[in-house]
């Protein structure tokens, strides 16, 4: 009951002209960013953060704008998957398998609208799940002391590589690099400068927004320059969309699939180290095993379109649970959203629910509203977004680069920050080439100070006894999960990743 009352208050906050407009804008921009290959949810949110920040938006409006972008990108990824056979972002990879064959059979409109409905079901289910699960998790989190928090942070880093990670050494390297970058600046506890080399600009530490925009957005520009991929992916392959609503029989056929995969995707999103890509992958695999009796999956089966879309949108919502309730994100985009909270001086975690209930519930209510907006945008108006796919990247990428610069310059007005951002862009390009994941670096720069403070607080409270870190059952449990999460990919990681990619090639060769 209390939850419903809170949600009611949330709607009262979300339904103002400003917030509704921001949600609409976010959904629109998000869908575009998701649809364009090369711009995904994390890039999209990363570019817009500094802007939301410099425009002086408050905490709730900024979060509404940026999570709408997040949800929108999850919807948008499917558009290029279906029409072009190129995933618009990583989670939409599985949608290619059945979506593109459907489009080739002349069912592009049906595939787009059906996947729109599936996205809606997944996201709606996940937002409901968020409402009920997050407060429960908060109750557990309130039992956490500094030692448990330290263990929780360690867990987040050790599982971030994900089950599909093939090289845990590179994930660990990335996490350590991020944490190391976070230690630059004046030590918060004793006031001594660390790793500043006398550079005054570094006393405040590196601004994590600068790191995020450089690593995510600018490195993408370099990748495009490297491959000189300046054209539009849609050039020369015009698809007729046809009818804009799915036939009722198709919806009926897919309903059980959508419900099952929403649940599965939500779970995948909540669990650390999984995220939306894995959510859509297991959703597709499970449905194939369950209902694919005639072997139609991979040849344009509507259920094969509904499954990954419901799965990845549900996972996107599920990933918000640990981010809001514990302050520890489990995926790339939620890590970027965490940066928004930190930049606004809001500490996520259990106290967020008691100290800033307006932010949490306003955000949740806005997610419901955004979801309906997205449904409306993605079914009748989908033709608008397919036209966006025609913009060639030789025009798009300069715009992305310049907007990144504007955002960062707007925050600080300093050339030094711009240079640091370029540095991060080059670093991001190199690390991507070497297959080093970027998300742990971001998470490290975000959580480094909190992690260190918890460590020092825990040990100081216990008079310098380091064993206090593994003193409580809760802390030991967290460490055990962390260690399992780190070791598991070493055993199964290569297999899962190989299957995620092999399946695609295999199906691709069949449908061609």
């Amino acid at each position, binding site marked *: 009951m209390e939850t419903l009352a809170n949600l009611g208050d949330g709607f009262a906050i979300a339904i103002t002209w400003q917030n509704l407009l921001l949600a609409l804008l976010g959904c629109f921009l998000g869908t575009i960013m998701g649809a364009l290959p090369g711009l995904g949810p994390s890039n999209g949110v990363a570019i817009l953060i500094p*802007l939301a920040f*410099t*425009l002086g938006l408050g905490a709730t409006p900024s979060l509404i704008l940026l999570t709408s972008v997040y949800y929108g990108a999850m919807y948008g990824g499917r558009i290029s998957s279906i029409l072009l056979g190129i995933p618009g972002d990583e989670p939409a990879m599985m949608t290619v398998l059945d979506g593109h064959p459907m489009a080739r059979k002349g069912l592009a409109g049906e595939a787009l609208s059906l996947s729109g409905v599936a996205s809606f079901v997944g996201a709606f289910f996940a937002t409901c799940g968020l409402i009920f699960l997050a407060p429960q998790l908060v109750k557990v989190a309130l039992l956490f002391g500094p030692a448990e928090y330290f263990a929780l942070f360690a867990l987040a880093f050790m599982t971030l590589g994900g089950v599909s990670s093939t*090289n845990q*050494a*590179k994930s*660990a*390297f990335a*996490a*350590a*690099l991020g*944490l*190391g970058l976070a*230690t630059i600046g004046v030590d918060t*506890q*004793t*006031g*001594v400068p*660390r*790793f500043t080399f006398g550079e005054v600009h570094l006393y405040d530490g590196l601004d994590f927004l600068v790191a995020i925009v450089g690593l995510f957005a600018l490195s993408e520009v*370099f990748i*495009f*320059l*490297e*491959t*000189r*991929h*300046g*054209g539009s992916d849609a050039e020369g392959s015009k698809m007729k969309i046809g009818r804009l609503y799915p036939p009722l029989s198709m919806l009926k056929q897919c309903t059980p699939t959508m419900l099952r995969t929403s649940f599965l995707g939500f779970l995948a999103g909540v669990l650390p180290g999984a995220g939306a890509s894995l959510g859509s992958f297991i959703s597709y695999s499970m449905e194939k095993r369950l209902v694919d009796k005639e072997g139609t999956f991979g040849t344009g089966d509507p259920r094969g379109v509904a499954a990954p879309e419901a799965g990845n949108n549900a996972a996107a919502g599920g990933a918000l649970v640990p981010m809001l309730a514990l302050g520890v994100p489990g995926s790339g985009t939620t890590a970027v959203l965490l940066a928004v909270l930190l930049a606004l001086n809001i500490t996520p975690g259990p106290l967020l629910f008691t100290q800033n209930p307006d932010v949490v519930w306003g955000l949740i209510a806005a997610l419901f509203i955004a979801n309906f907006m997205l449904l409306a945008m993605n079914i009748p108006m989908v033709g608008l977004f397919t036209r966006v796919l025609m913009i060639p*990247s*030789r*025009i798009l*990428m*300069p*715009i992305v*680069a*310049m907007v990144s*610069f*504007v955002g960062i*310059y*707007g925050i600080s*007005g300093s*050339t030094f920050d*711009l*240079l640091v951002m*370029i540095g991060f*862009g*080059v670093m991001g*390009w190199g690390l991507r*080439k*070497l*297959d080093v994941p970027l998300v742990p670096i971001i998470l490290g720069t975000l959580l480094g100070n909190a*992690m*260190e403070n918890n*460590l*020092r607080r825990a*040990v*100081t409270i216990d*008079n*310098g006894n380091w064993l206090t870190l593994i003193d409580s059952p809760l802390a030991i449990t967290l460490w055990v999960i962390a260690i399992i999460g780190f070791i598991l990919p070493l055993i199964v990681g290569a297999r899962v990743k190989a299957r995620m990619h092999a399946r695609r090639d295999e199906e691709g060769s069949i449908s061609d």
Partner: protein
Amino acid sequence: MSDRIFGVVGVLLSIGYIFAALAIEESFLSDAVGPKAFPLIIAGILGISSLVIALRPDPEPHWPSLARLVEIAAAVVVLILYAELLPVLGFVIATAFAAGYLAWRLGSSALEAVLTGIGTSVGIYVIFHLVLGLSLARGPFGF
């Protein structure tokens, strides 16, 4: 080979990081842990993971040809110049040049690049400065 070099660079980085951490001057008012312990732990993880990367390298990544590398280096130089000249030239002029350059290098024709540059710069100026009120760098002409 790339991973071996990368691993060695990582090990060197962690050694440098350890030296820099040991050089931190401790304040007389310190907690039980002090400002050095956490960086040293991180340096340990950095060093070990780099060592593993060097000893068990992944298959060689696909590196671009020298011409493409020069292309990226040139773009970096242009962006650095952009950052340095932004306060001198002002937002609109500097951005038009930088965006035009990137568009040109991504394969636009000369005319298209000029139009993209001017369009991006004026577009951002109108939306972000005139409509949304964001302060951008002011040049000699006030824009």
